[in-house]
């Protein structure tokens, strides 16, 4: 069985990252010929299972208790670790968010199983341990960047169960399986899992910022790098994005230079995006940046340097000063649009 630990948004909806994991979990479960289950812990969860069935979830496990909302480590730890012991999943997937990265390692430590952080790809395959002369079938390959993005490691946990991994938001694709998919819902008695010691950390105040900029769901992204030269020049990227109905993204170097807000940063330490079209303006294409955008449908690079690494992954390259080419693009688009 494959188990997804689901996170909730501030207004008690299933978080996108969890739905993305349900889609991936469904594929893995199909490959293994097993069930997909999802655990939701929170408060006032009436009907929440209906958000999960269409992603192919067979069993929704629901724990509804005021002590479970907002998220705190110990109550969620008590629940998830017991649920895993009782239901014995082969694979457990969680978001690589501030919740998942807080909870998953503690769970792995309690269950003494392996955990791979920030996976960018998950596959099923076989593994041979040559030293032990043993081979394993249908193991989860957990593929992740490390060393600041300079290497990609494929990690396996052949001996221990469950095989646990975290995945960042936007890395997997969210896809409806079947809007009429039939699953069942099991309500867990939270009181049976929670103890008084789980109250050792108390939340005194929370200030949650609404995300104002939504680059993750944009189908067109006009992205600027340090090569744009100034915050003023970034203005033309906003004009192009507006004309095309897209959003503006940025590299870390551009954010650090103050050309754009931190929320726009794309890459390993920013947002992962997969738009239909990505226009990279004055971006060199460092691995840490590419990690967040190389799954884009089409990539256009505008760069003065013909040898910029970004050009190697671009579908179209225009060699030239972005501050001249971008206005040309805007003009051409305005002339041709219906």
């Amino acid at each position, binding site marked *: 069985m494959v188990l997804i630990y689901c996170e909730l948004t*501030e207004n008690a909806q299933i978080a996108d990252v969890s739905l993305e994991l349900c889609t991936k979990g469904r594929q893995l479960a199909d490959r293994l010929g097993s069930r997909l289950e999802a655990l939701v812990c929170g408060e006032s969860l009436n009907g929440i299972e209906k958000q999960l069935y269409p992603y192919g979830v067979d069993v929704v496990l629901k724990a509804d208790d005021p002590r479970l909302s907002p998220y705190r*480590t110990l109550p969620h730890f008590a629940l998830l670790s017991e649920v895993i012991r009782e239901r014995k999943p082969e694979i457990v997937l969680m978001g690589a968010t*501030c919740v998942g*990265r*807080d*909870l998953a*390692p*503690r769970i*792995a430590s*309690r269950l*003494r*199983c392996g*955990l791979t*952080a*920030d996976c960018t790809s998950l596959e099923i395959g076989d*593994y041979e*341990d040559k030293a032990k002369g043993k081979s394993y079938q249908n193991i989860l*390959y957990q593929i992740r*960047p490390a*060393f*600041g993005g*300079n*290497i*990609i*490691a*494929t*990690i*396996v*946990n052949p*001996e221990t169960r469950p095989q646990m991994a975290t995945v960042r938001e936007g890395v997997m694709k969210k896809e409806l399986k079947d809007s009429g998919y039939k699953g069942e819902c099991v309500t867990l008695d939270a009181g049976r899992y929670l103890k008084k010691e789980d109250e*050792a*950390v*108390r*939340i*005194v*105040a*929370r*200030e*949650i*910022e609404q*995300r104002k900029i939504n680059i993750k769901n944009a189908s*067109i992204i006009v992205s600027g790098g340090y090569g744009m030269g100034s915050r003023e020049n970034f203005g033309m990227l906003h004009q192009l994005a507006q004309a095309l109905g897209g959003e503006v993204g940025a590299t870390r170097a551009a954010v650090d230079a103050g050309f754009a807000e931190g929320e726009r940063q794309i890459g390993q330490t920013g947002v992962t995006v997969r738009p239909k079209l990505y226009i990279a303006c004055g971006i060199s294409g460092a*691995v840490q940046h590419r990690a967040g955008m190389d799954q884009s449908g*089409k990539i*256009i*690079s505008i760069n003065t340097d013909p040898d910029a690494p970004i*050009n*190697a*992954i671009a*579908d*179209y*390259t*225009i*060699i030239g000063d972005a501050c001249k080419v971008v206005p*040309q693009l805007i003009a*051409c*688009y305005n*002339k*041709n*649009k219906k």
Partner: protein
Amino acid sequence: MSYKIVVLIKQVPDTQNVGPDAMNADGTVNRAALPAIFNPEDLKALEMALQVKDKYPESRVTVLTMGPERAASIIRDALSRGADNGIIVSDIRFAGSDTLATSYALACAIRKTGHYDLIFGGRQAIDGDTAQVGPQVAEKLDLPQVTYAERLLSLKDDTITLTRRLDNGVETVEATLPLLVTVTASAPDCRYPHAHRLLQYAKTQPEIWNADAISPEMERLGLKGSPTKVKKIDNVVLAHKEGVRIENSDAAIGELVVSLMEDHIIG
């Protein structure tokens, strides 16, 4: 009032300033080409510990690292910034540890230091990049955890108040000691070394504990105690796409725009 504090520190290759010779031809990391530095968030963890000591000067700050003996340099650095004592946990039997085996060894070593009230660590090390060791040490010692701490607001008797930096905001929490705290990149920078302490500790050889010294269950150490196996490592190389070079002219750019519109990518 005084507190016994342990700070977990790690020496890491400087992955943020990777030069062209950082990778060997076979895709492994050329550690020799990367300068070894104090993991940046661990310096912030040390600062938070020293803030406790500022307020309660009788407190004792011990820095602890697991790694090769040359990690003594970050211990000396920590001592010169105000830590009281440093220990290196070092043994060939720790080689190949994943985060589970690392946190187990660190937890055994922390127990050996005796009574503790607070353990600080960085959120994440810049080489392994997992952010798993802190919460795993907490679980092994059966301590509650506060991750991504940004500011220490108050500490009185056995109650501490901290802010946490989340993906989408800030949370203020109050917790009962003993406790493990991981400190995030946006926390205050560490104070500089004191000149006289730099001299005082320049040649200090910190205490080294081997595996026997921390009384572990041996099968939980190193490669044997690590459920995760690295199946393969790929150097990041650019998969070259057969891209199209668009001439920088009004006509060519116009044609590109039209073809993107025809393919319904824009428009």
